């Protein structure tokens, strides 16, 4: 058991090392543009990781996750526009409001399952999209431009790309660690049990709906956090961020990277965004090629996605 732990840990340390060294390497190569690009990838990674909570671990196909990301982004965006650039307040509110929306949407949606759940989460997210789109005061469909980034004090100048990168990296690492602890905790076990057999979980005494809802709200809050980071990174937010096709892209990231794994969403985000950037150099039709890649993954995955979905746990029960 111990040796399995350390081999996984080795991979994590390596990734962490690369991540930390990356901006310095880019500075040395005088390609600092990539630092900002990497931040964007990490932020999308966080959004995908938050979706994986409900999608991969929870086994709930929620098709409206972009709404929570967008809500987080708009919360911070509006606050900054209204003269409240304080990051502590902004980020906390972003997560809280996203969580509140998740609570309401989840309360209604989680009473359904299968096809209905997919369509209802989709519809509610689109509802939020239209809501945001119609608020002309904050840009409407043209979006909202920001003149500054969130201010956290502590000597952190988030306007500096490298500082921002490390800020994002730190938050991402903290979230990944938190999710890791979560899935090994009592709550996490129950969630995984519900994913295996919801009826059975209920039959041994777990109020399944309640647990799903709590998970859904957590995922929404984390999505909001990703949104708060996103609006900072782009200095801009538009309703397009909430469009259901964005939810689809997040799902694609989760699948590409390996659904139901801790950092699958992160790798998927990196792969997808890299593909986008690379293919866009040659053609504007990058979505065409990504579409085929995605199709291939879905169709050719060894045991179908269902096999990848719930990776076989090792004998000691660890994922």
């Amino acid at each position, binding site marked *: 058991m111990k040796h399995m732990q350390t081999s996984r840990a080795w991979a994590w340390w390596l990734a962490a090392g690369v991540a930390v060294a990356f901006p310095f390497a880019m500075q040395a190569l005088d390609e600092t543009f990539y630092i900002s690009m990497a931040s964007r990838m990490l932020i999308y990674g966080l959004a995908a990781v938050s979706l994986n909570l409900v999608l991969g671990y929870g086994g709930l196909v929620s098709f409206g996750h972009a709404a929570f990301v967008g809500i987080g982004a708009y919360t911070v965006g509006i606050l900054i526009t209204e003269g409240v650039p304080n990051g502590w307040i902004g980020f906390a509110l972003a997560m809280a409001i996203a969580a509140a929306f998740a609570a309401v949407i989840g309360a209604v949606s989680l009473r359904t399952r299968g096809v209905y759940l997919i369509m209802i989460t989709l519809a509610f997210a689109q509802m939020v999209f239209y809501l945001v789109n119609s608020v002309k005061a904050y840009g409407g469909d043209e979006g909202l431009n920001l003149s500054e980034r969130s201010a956290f004090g502590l000597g952190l100048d988030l306007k500096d790309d490298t500082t921002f990168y490390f800020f994002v990296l730190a938050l991402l690492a903290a979230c990944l660690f938190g999710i890791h602890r*979560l899935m090994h*905790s009592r709550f996490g076990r129950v969630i995984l049990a519900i994913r295996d057999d919801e009826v059975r979980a209920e039959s041994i005494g777990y109020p*399944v709906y309640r647990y799903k809802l709590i998970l859904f709200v957590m995922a929404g809050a984390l999505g909001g956090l990703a949104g708060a980071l996103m609006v900072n990174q782009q200095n801009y937010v538009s309703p397009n961020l909430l469009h259901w096709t964005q939810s689809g892209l997040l799902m694609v990231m989760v699948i590409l990277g390996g659904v139901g794994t801790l950092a699958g969403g992160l790798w998927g985000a990196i792969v997808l965004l890299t593909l986008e950037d690379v293919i866009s150099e040659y053609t504007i039709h990058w979505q065409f090629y990504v579409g085929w890649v995605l199709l291939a993954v879905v169709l050719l995955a060894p045991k179908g996605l269902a096999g990848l979905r719930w990776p076989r746990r090792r004998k000691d029960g660890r994922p």
Partner: protein
Amino acid sequence: MSDARTSPALLQVQGLVKRFGALVATDHVDLDVRPGEIHALIGPNGAGKTSLVAQLSGHLRSDAGRVRFDGTDVTALSTHERVARGLARSFQITRLFKSFSVRDNLALAVQARSGSSLRFWRPVAAERALRDAADALLQRLGLQAQADALASALSHGEQRVLEIGLALATQPRLLLLDEPMAGVGPDETQRLVGLIDELRRECGILLVEHDMDAVFRLADRITVLVNGAVIASGAPEAIRQDPQVVAAYLGEDLGAHLAQTTETAHPVHPVQTAQGAHTAPSVEGATAGHGDTRADGDRHG
């Protein structure tokens, strides 16, 4: 057994009704289970046994009637609320947590009754108490050797044992066992019978079964369900002789059993005893009169 007869009912079902469109799956069923007794529920396929169990466990909403558990009306309660009060169920088609180990399956059930699971930080692996309780259950079920194996890797018979184990882990006072022997070979059946027999000391059991050997070995009382209604209920010997019951089964299982059990106190020839030695079954519900019209040809494949 005399205690079982005189103690107040642990589970009391009154006038339960369930319809699916025009089909009456549960037709004004009355039933009770006393503590320490094994009450078997038998009937041909399609009689509505699983529907009844589902209503008792809270998986299916009844259209009418009441379910009282330990004096409290639980009719409106959800499944998990009933489990919390000690009313647990095992399933006819095995439902296990396939990606968890055998021990972890049981640990999950133990966890449900050991305080809140709204804990988000501390690893479950650190909780010795859960693991110990699960291990104790494993011993009891005879599954210690497979403690670390995935539940999906067990043989069918072992899975059926674990199936009951999961229900048992919730520390029930009443167990609803839905065809525990389903698809199980003779050796495993013995094991299950032994396990269930032991369990009677700790909790009341409502046992739905087709395996007549097991039923007559274990049951203190038997209720017969045909087309959703109770046609007979009482001591096993009485049920054996009840012509309506025999006819309902078209003689196959029950009749074959009757032919074999020559050592019983009441040798039976269904035709001869129809008028004579017929002992009136202690029918708990007023549906005995339906037997004649219902008893033919309702054995579904």
